[in-house]
């Protein structure tokens, strides 16, 4: 991980310095300012010359900054992907609406997407999700009224096998959450309580009618509840139809948060897979239990 920039802005200053020292920048500023100054003077007099002479260097510098910012972001994501053994998707895919978060709002898009191995047998996708809520204006056009950002890790835990348990959602409690889970979770999702005050202060656990409450209880064992209640990132997760989505609010753009979120996804995946295997083994040994 040593070659990975620590965050998405880490190399921006270096790129900006390089751009400002480049010949392209110097030519653009000198020639642009001269041409714009002369043209401004011819058209609007001294004030036009001043505006042209200052405006072009300012615009070129802004462009250099935006370019440096973009390149720093590319450095970061490519470096992170390399360190994790992931691949960056230049054109992020459209995720099917596996879970409530991936089906939330009126439109969803991924603005970043990396894919690679999570553990020995499963792959994960890591990305930035934007959920948009739209309203219809008086003239009939769709107007974007709100967009919410999440960093998500998506894992196909059961690899297309018959899902062990479906419809378990652990959402962080947030006082000022613009995308209220109540609005996009299925209406019949039932709220369950755990025995931990710390967990209850931090999360809301819900289960859809499809989810076997006994399995949900077994999954949310004391060690898992305690682990979630003390996790520094307070990641939420949704598990439905064998697909796990681990998420946190906002677009994380630092290596620490992203790898930590990926680790959380790895841990949750391992717990779900272990519980599923244990239940299947028990059912195979005692068919009456199944």
């Amino acid at each position, binding site marked *: 991980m040593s070659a990975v920039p620590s965050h998405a802005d880490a190399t921006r200053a270096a790129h900006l310095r390089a751009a400002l020292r480049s010949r392209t920048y110097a030519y653009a500023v000198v020639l642009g300012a001269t041409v714009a100054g002369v043209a401004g003077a011819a058209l609007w007099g001294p004030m036009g010359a001043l505006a042209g002479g200052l405006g072009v260097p300012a615009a070129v510098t802004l462009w250099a900054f935006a370019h440096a910012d973009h390149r720093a972001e590319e450095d970061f994501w490519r470096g992170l992907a390399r360190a994790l053994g992931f691949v960056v998707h230049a054109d992020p895919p459209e995720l099917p609406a596996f879970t409530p978060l991936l089906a939330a709002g009126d439109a969803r898009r991924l603005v970043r997407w990396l894919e690679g191995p999570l553990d020995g047998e499963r792959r994960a996708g890591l990305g930035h999700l934007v959920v948009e809520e739209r309203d219809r204006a008086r003239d009939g056009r769709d107007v974007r009224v709100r967009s919410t950002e999440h960093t998500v890790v998506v894992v196909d835990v059961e690899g297309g096998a018959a899902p062990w348990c479906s419809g378990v959602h652990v959402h962080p409690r947030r006082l000022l959450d613009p995308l209220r889970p109540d609005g996009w979770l299925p209406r019949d999702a039932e709220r369950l309580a755990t025995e*931990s005050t*710390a967990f209850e202060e931090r999360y809301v656990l819900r289960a859809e009618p499809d989810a076997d409450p006994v399995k949900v209880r077994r999954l949310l*064992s*004391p*060690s898992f*509840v*305690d682990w979630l*209640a003390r996790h520094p990132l307070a990641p939420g997760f949704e598990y439905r139809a064998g697909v796990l989505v681990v998420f946190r609010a906002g677009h994380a753009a630092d290596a620490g948060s992203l790898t930590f979120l990926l680790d959380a996804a790895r841990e949750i995946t391992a717990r779900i897979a272990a519980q599923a295997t244990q239940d299947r083994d028990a059912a195979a040994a005692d068919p009456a239990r199944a």
Partner: protein
Amino acid sequence: MTLLYVVLGLLALTALAVVLIHNGLVAARNRVDEAWSGIDVQLRRRHDLVPNLVAAVRGYAEHERATFEAVTHARATAMAAGSPEHRAVAESRLGRALADVTALAEQYPELRATENFGHLQAELARTEDEIQAARRIYNGNVQAYLTRCQTFPNSIVAANGPFPPKPYFELTDPERERVAPVVAF
């Protein structure tokens, strides 16, 4: 007349506050009890594992009768213990006795190689993890409950209602209790 309304309003507000505080304390107390039952489940699971573990090791170390008797006695005491304080002491003893049995098993490579023993050991380790997690959850709930009971104005309601202080559940770690050997030079 205005004064009467003000007094009635204040009384109504006070009554509402007392009801809210009381309900909050009841919820906190119930959560402590719920967390205690969570510990109980895990401890029972450990109790259930003891006979299997003893049976597995006994087959290889029949002569270590004292160790087996100690663990059997510790299990019986732990199962009979009632209050969290007594339970903590008894469970700590059982933990130490189990550690002795596991240490004994370490001396028999053939036993360690058996699938059954490996499975039992893994199950025991998992159960110990769950006990520690359940204990942290219980102690966290007790702390939240005690804080509620002791802060003003909750303390007034708590002192006059069925809200006894709840004890923390502390298990001593057998590994930590072992005294480090003194090395003389």
